[in-house]
């Protein structure tokens, strides 16, 4: 509960219309896209500019009230679930594209801009903003920055981090700082831009961002390759890259996923194959042609049972359907869908997928794996039912083992979803005690009162996640 004084102070900053502490108003910001996490905030505040953000932060810092900045609430690590109450900060007023600078190839935006709106706006000027998370139709740039979102184009073009070159942020004491700029080179002090990207709202509040743009690729081609053997598919991935070709898309579906997808979408996928690769290349037409021909050769050499290059955009769209339907198909199987993002070096993909399948058998679970094979970012997905507590225990254990395997293969617990609350208990697996301590020191230095999205990234104890918390 916010005291009357605090409420009054916040309202004096943002006006009554931008403060909501009704039950309905709070309930709809008590969750994000992460299964089994729900917790009521004490109030919902929608500032209109950075000065208002700064004033609100000062009030919260004085009264030690948690602040959870929130875009569209599509993240998958409970990063925007207000697990410790406090206020949820919305950016629905701060959603403007301030500038597209065609000379410096940058876009300056407010955090509430929807990712796809930005992509469309820059593409209309022949420019390209590559990060394309699955939720890009509604996710916000602010959210993408805070989670350092990836997407299908990560292999060739990198992730959100690679396109943020400057930030304006409000620190937990209310100070407003600017980092970086419209600069390709800038070594003036610590790289705070990179520190803030992926900080999950724990260090401050991003109020503006300068994004790097690149010219839009001229053409694109799409190919689907089918395999009777998982290793062969994985080997194709490594060999394509070893041939010095970096495809724009290199996506993977395993057999359990294929079966579910075909059952759902009825697009004529052979369900007796063990793996499918969806491969795309973009660029100048002659390069795309040459690369696709070479990729097709590699796939055949590696015993692909079928290689199909789309002859038209409509056909390409059909091939993409297989990958795009994966989540829908899996989500329909059971009420609860646990989607993880354990990531390994791409040379370890076959081992990792095999390990996941073994773990699924061990815990008697249906785990389907698809994902971004090119960058080793896999999405082992478990359709389950949160009401079945016994099964949820097994899901818990299985994923703990999957994370351990990923680390063993030189990978990480999360490639693109973030740590949040969901994976906080596993952070030490990746970083070690010392690594966690160093990160905590940074957090404590900037946010001594721990008001910025508390309870995220760093676990309070080693208690594992999943179990419902209100």
């Amino acid at each position, binding site marked *: 509960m916010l005291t009357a004084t605090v409420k009054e102070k916040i309202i004096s900053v943002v006006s009554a219309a931008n403060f909501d502490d009704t*039950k309905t108003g709070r309930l709809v910001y008590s969750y994000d896209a992460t299964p089994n996490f729900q917790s009521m905030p004490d109030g919902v505040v929608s500032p209109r500019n950075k000065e208002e953000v700064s004033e609100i932060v000062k009030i919260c810092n004085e009264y030690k009230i948690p602040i959870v900045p929130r875009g569209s609430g*599509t993240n998958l690590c409970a990063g925007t679930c207000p697990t410790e109450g406090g206020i949820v900060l919305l950016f629905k007023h701060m959603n403007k594209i301030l500038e597209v600078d065609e000379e410096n190839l940058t876009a300056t935006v407010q955090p509430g801009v929807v990712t796809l709106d930005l992509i469309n706006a820059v593409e209309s000027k022949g420019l390209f903003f590559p990060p394309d998370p699955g939720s890009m139709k*509604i*996710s916000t740039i602010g959210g993408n920055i805070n989670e350092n979102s990836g997407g299908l184009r990560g292999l060739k073009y990198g992730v959100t981090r690679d396109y943020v070159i400057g930030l304006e942020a409000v620190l937990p004491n209310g100070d407003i700082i600017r980092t970086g700029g419209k600069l390709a080179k800038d070594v003036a002090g610590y790289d705070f831009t990179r520190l803030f990207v992926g900080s999950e709202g724990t260090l401050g509040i991003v109020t503006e961002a300068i994004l790097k743009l690149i010219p839009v690729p001229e053409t694109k081609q799409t190919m689907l390759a089918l395999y009777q053997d998982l290793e062969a598919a994985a080997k194709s991935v490594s060999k394509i890259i070893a041939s010095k070709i970096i495809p724009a898309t290199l996506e993977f579906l395993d057999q359990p996923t294929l079966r579910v997808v075909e059952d759902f979408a009825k697009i004529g996928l052979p369900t007796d194959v063990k793996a499918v690769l969806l491969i795309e290349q973009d660029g100048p037409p002659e390069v795309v042609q040459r690369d696709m021909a070479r990729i097709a050769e590699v796939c055949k050499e590696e015993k692909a049972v079928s290689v199909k290059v789309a002859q038209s955009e409509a056909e390409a769209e059909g091939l993409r359907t297989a990958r795009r339907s994966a989540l829908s198909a899996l*989500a*329909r199987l059971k009420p609860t869908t646990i989607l993880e993002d354990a990531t390994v070096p791409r040379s370890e993909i076959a081992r990792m997928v095999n390990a996941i399948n073994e773990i699924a058998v061990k815990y008697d679970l249906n785990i389907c794996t698809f994902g971004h094979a090119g960058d080793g970012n896999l999405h082992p997905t478990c359709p389950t039912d949160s009401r079945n507590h016994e099964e949820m225990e097994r899901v818990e254990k299985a994923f703990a083992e999957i994370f351990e395997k990923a680390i063993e293969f030189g990978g990480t617990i999360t490639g693109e979803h973030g740590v949040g609350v969901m994976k906080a208990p596993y952070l030490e697996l990746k970083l070690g005690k010392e690594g966690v301590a160093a990160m905590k020191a940074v957090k404590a230095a900037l946010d001594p009162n721990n008001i910025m999205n508390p309870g995220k990234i760093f676990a309070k104890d080693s208690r594992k996640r999943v179990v419902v918390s209100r």
Partner: protein
Amino acid sequence: MTTVQEQQRIQTQFQEKMNQDELLNCMRCGFCLPTCPTYIESGYQESHSPRGRIALMKAVVDGLIEPDEDFERSLDLCLGCRACEPVCPSGVNYGHLLEEARDIVNQNKKFSMPVRVVRKAVFKGLFPHQNRMRGLTGLIGFYQRSGLQKVARGTGVMKLFPESIATMEKVLPKVPTMKEMKNRPEHLEAIGTKTHKVAFFSGCLMDTMFLETNNATMKLLQLAGCEIVIPKTQACCGALHGHSGEKEDAKALARRNIKAFEDDGVDFIITNAGGCGAFLIDYDHLLKDDPEWKERALAFADKIKDISQILVEVGFHEKVKLELPHQVITYQDSCHLRNVMKTASAPRTLLKAINGVEFREMQNADRCCGSAGIYNIVESEMSMQLLDSKMVQAKATHATTIVTANPGCLLQMKLGIEREGLASSMRGVHIVDLLVEAVKE
């Protein structure tokens, strides 16, 4: 205003009646948000989004919140356009959840006296009775033909009504006479080679106020090679009742219609109103708890098809020459035709087949125009906000003809044209009327 006792009753019934599996199926991914007109128009308020509404329903079931006024407001502002359903990865049937929730709220709510009288008159006294629908339409006809309309407009008495109604009065079609409405065919032979035997669902509003559109529909079916039966005992589809929390009335109408169409041995039951079609195709869900009717409802629902769909399937647009004077046309989807009946490409295929016509796709043609049954009267402000956005897109196409596939959408488009002062340069038409206009025999 709901009392504490009312809230408790609503809460108990939510726990008993709401489909908990369906509520749990929402994985809160947020993919529905960008498709929701009220989420966008309310300035991204989660409480006016499908994900928010489902979370609120679930919270009432779980006892996290009470079904208070804010909760009701969230349900009330929903258009029920169901644009959230095709994009939902989990396939949550939001429309069913909304219908159930509204039914529970309305059945436990004491409406104020005037609202009760109006609801009873409309839902029980008017729509289920085709003769009374004719009577009302007849009154409008009298109003239009007697000179009363001129008087009303001249004296400015229409200014006393809310803006949407006042403008609506101007855009109502010229209604048929009593004699025309009573004298309806029951059976029509195919013209040329017969390909199918179909039944025609003539609807309540369509067979009175939009009689000409019904005639055009039957003409097209005949030309497409369909023998048509038009059962006399059919009634209003009940959509209005179902969407307004009067489920029992809707069920009674459903049973009547199923019976009326059961014994004709037809291949399909054809509709020409997306709103009706979507409700008819859902009869099996409406009657799912009624063992005697469940199967019969399913057989009925399986036969429902929109006019544009059957025309494309029998190749009407390839068989019959269609031609119009040069004009730019655009198409506004009927939400229920698109999102529930999954008919989106057929109308466009037909329109593109008309010689002389340039078809230009309007941006966000799949977004609700704000008509939504009686929404444009009860939620006038949001409805007009949606209509204004719609007209911006319509104007951007430079179309002189806006085509729709549902009477509500048609009236709303006409309303939009009137509000923009474009009545002299732009028109709104039902797709079948345009097709009949284009037929070169």
